[in-house]
């Protein structure tokens, strides 16, 4: 053992790792940055796409001289802010009840919120139309039957209608899923120290717990606000018919003009990007670094407030809210899909499966179903492959450009789906990628993969951070090449996260509308877009059937995968 022959040293260029690293950065810069660049450039291009470019300020002038444009921007802010306030209040209350009290059935409430989080929003908006439409909405019909009421009581096609529906879709469940772990993570020791020091529960809450989690709550509020700005589905169905435009529906509207007003659309998109950049800057300055450092007590808290007999009242309130906001509309979606003519209960045979038969008899449906499954599968596989690599690169201490890379991966948080698609559309049109990506399932999948970037990257990053470098290095020193080590050590250990990321990307790809809405063609039309088209053509019953079907597909998938699928909320 005293003399050991070591094979002659293979000569390896030291910079090989660097090369791969800059490759990844370049790829991301192209995929994330180029659509934005194209968007900006094309906002100055005053000739239609695929014609020779002529540059000028006409688009910007027209966009700003149209009072609707700035109005749409303002409406986006106003709406997002308006439903943020009740949304935050409700979700803080529910999360607090779940995490910090002895409310009866808090596990059930948490599960229902988790379930509601995955219910796609477009079918829900449709369901609220079935309930509240001034002409055929069930609640209006029912109200009219009462004395002293004439004319519709509710009108969903209004500012407050949009706010209300948001509290049923993204406004609450998402925040509950973000906030519950934060409430749970407040270190027990911090609170116990305060109790021992002589503070009662409410003093602890006021003086210790709340200040400690305040930055996290503000971060959730800021994120929700920015996400609210990109909202599209609700405003499209409820705002457009009465002329309430947010900037996303305004952009969509421009692209539907005859001829399409791409110039105005890109100018409006660019203005919005500038506004977002300013917002993101302030958000980073105010909250960077505060998010997690504060919630670092040890151990999960066991200190739960005793609600006494209010534990049943609290449960009833939570279940009541979930029932009214989630199961009532889902119930009417089901009812709508099996009525011959929705709202006409006095017909001789009001119930029928005719709309389901029509749906399944429609050849377009099967093409769309196939497209959706193909798109979702590509998205899920690509998201796992891409973001596991990026997450690994971000964690690897050797990567020097990690901060730049990470910033790029956050971009889709602030660049809304419809803007991303608009940029991609221009990129597809202007480059040789056109033949492969324009109007194809591949182009839609690419947009969806980009949209998944922040959540997926952060999930993998957290997983790799948790593993630490030792397990990997131990394998390398043991004689395993990088690929062998990845296969035998890293891959099995991050598999649960990979499954989660795959499931969630698949689900999001099935239900997204604003991302593919500018990119699809009749050959690549996915189910969600078909649902949108049914809703516009007044076929509410068939739309209800399809909406229910999509909801069932996603819910079934999430329930089957419940063992793995946790909302990736701990990482945001």
């Amino acid at each position, binding site marked *: *053992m*005293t*003399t*050991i*022959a*070591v*094979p*002659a*040293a*293979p*000569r*390896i*260029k*030291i910079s090989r790792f660097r090369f791969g690293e800059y490759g990844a950065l370049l790829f991301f810069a192209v995929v994330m940055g180029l659509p934005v660049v194209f968007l900006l450039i094309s906002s100055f291009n005053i000739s239609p796409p695929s014609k020779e470019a002529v540059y000028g300020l006409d688009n910007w002038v027209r966009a700003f001289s149209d009072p609707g444009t700035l109005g749409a921007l303002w409406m986006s802010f106003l709406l997002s802010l308006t439903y943020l306030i009740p949304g935050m209040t409700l979700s803080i209350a529910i999360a607090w009840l779940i995490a910090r009290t002895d409310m009866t059935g808090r596990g059930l409430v948490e599960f229902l919120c988790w379930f509601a989080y995955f219910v796609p929003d477009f079918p829900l908006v449709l369901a609220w139309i079935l309930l509240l439409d001034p002409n055929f909405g069930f609640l209006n019909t029912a109200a009219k039957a009462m004395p002293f009421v004439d004319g519709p009581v509710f009108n969903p096609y209004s500012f407050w209608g949009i706010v209300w529906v948001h509290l049923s879709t993204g406004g609450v469940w998402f925040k509950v899923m973000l906030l519950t772990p934060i409430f749970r993570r407040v270190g027990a020791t911090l609170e116990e120290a305060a109790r021992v020091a002589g503070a009662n529960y409410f003093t602890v809450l006021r003086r210790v717990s709340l200040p400690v989690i305040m930055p996290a709550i503000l971060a959730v509020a800021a994120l929700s606000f920015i996400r609210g700005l990109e909202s599209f589905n609700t405003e499209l169905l409820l705002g457009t018919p009465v002329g309430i435009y947010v900037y996303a529906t305004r952009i969509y509207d421009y692209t539907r003009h005859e001829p399409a007003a791409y110039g105005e659309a890109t100018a409006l998109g660019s203005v919005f990007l500038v506004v977002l950049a300013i917002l993101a800057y302030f958000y980073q300055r105010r909250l960077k670094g505060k998010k997690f450092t504060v919630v670092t007590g040890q151990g999960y808290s066991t200190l739960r407030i005793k609600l006494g007999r209010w534990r049943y009242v609290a449960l009833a309130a939570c279940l009541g809210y979930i029932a009214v906001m989630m199961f009532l509309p889902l119930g009417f979606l089901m009812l709508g899909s099996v009525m011959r003519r929705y709202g006409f209960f006095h017909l001789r045979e009001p119930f029928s499966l005719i709309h389901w038969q029509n749906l399944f008899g429609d050849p377009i449906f099967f093409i769309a179903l196939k497209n959706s499954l193909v798109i979702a599968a590509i998205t899920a596989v690509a998201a796992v492959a891409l973001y596991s690599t990026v997450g690994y690169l971000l964690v690897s201490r050797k990567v020097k450009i990690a901060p730049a890379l990470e910033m790029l991966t956050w971009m889709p948080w602030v660049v809304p789906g419809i803007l991303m698609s608009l940029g991609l559309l221009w990129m597809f049109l202007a480059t040789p990628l056109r033949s492969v990506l324009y109007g194809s399932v591949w182009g839609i999948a690419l947009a969806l993969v980009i949209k998944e970037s922040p959540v997926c990257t952060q999930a993998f990053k957290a997983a790799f951070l948790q593993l*630490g470098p*030792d*397990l990997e*290095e*131990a*394998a*390398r*020193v*043991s*004689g*395993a*090449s*990088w690929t*062998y*080590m990845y296969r*035998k*050590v890293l891959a*099995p*250990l991050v598999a649960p996260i990979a499954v989660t990321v795959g499931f969630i990307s698949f689900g999001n790809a099935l239900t997204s509308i604003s991302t593919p809405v500018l990119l699809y063609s009749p050959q690549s039309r996915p189910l969600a877009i078909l649902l949108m088209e049914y809703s516009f053509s007044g076929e509410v019953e068939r739309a209800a059937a399809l909406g229910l079907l999509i909801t069932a597909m996603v819910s079934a998938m999430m329930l089957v995968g419940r063992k793995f699928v946790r909302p990736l909320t701990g990482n945001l």
Partner: protein
Amino acid sequence: MAQAVLEFRDVLKRYGDYTAVDRVSFALAPGEFFTLLGPSGCGKTTTLRLAAGLEEPDDGEIVLSGNPIAAPRRGILVPPDKRRMGMVFQSYAIWPHMTVFENVAFPLRVRGESAGALKKKVLDALELVGLGGFEARGATSLSGGQQQRVALARALSYTPAVLLLDEPLSNLDAKLREQMRFELRALQRRLNLTVLYVTHDQSEAMTLSDRIAVMRQGKIEQLGNPVDIYERPATAFVGDFLGRTVVLDGALKKTGDRLFLEFAGGERLSVGENHNGKFADGEAIRIVCRPEDVRILAAGPVAPTEITARVNEVAYLGDHLEYTVGACGRSIIVVAGKHERYPAGAEIRLAFDPARLTLLHIES
């Protein structure tokens, strides 16, 4: 000395402006237990990781059995998997999704060992670390000490050129640490392993090592066998790091061949005759020795190797007494057996052994 198994030649590692390893050179003889000792942040772990190939040096050469494995100037960098090293991490790095058997078998599987030989080697390695019969257990169901043994078995299941150990005992409780220290040394002797060991615990380094390199701020401060380093520290830092020291400062006075240290109060101490030439007359000098090499005597006539002192505090520590005494304007701690006792306030003499004194230039 036979050809060195592992040799560092002027190895340099920087992180930005920070120099973690600053032109370090040393060589491990076959079968040697070599320890890098130093406080946290001194660059010892980085040095180990450079040997493993987990870090790239910025300059210098690392040579394994005559073959360069990292030499940036020549564009050579052998990746960690081609270096035939075995390594035990401070966290043990046991793969949680594999059984004990699979963990230990990993280095053999990578090397394409045949199934029969693989099984025998794995079981032998587990037997060696005292984990026979544990092979089917899940790796995460083991205690800290058992995980440590699995990590060791994994590093030894094939025959590594050098065994790299990164503070392997620091996460164990005191009793287990002592036992593992003993077993580790016995194992190293029996298998004649060449070991590069990293620790911040001086007693671990003293009991395990053939040679110790004391590191500070990326540099090797002193390299030698444990006795040398403890008895004749090259710098005050080394002396202090390896245990408690008695330190006195004064001016050097030459009287013929004999050297004296003259303190601020005018008192003189004979410090021997062997330092001729190294120190100049009148130079500011520091003497360093171990508390146990200073004897306490009752007040009386003061010999040249003695100084007067006064007891300030006495601490009873069971098997011995610890005196805090004031001498030559300094407060120093000396120890004595429990049979000779001096109360606080007593006048005493401190007797030094010139052969056990280290003289140092005072770093300005």
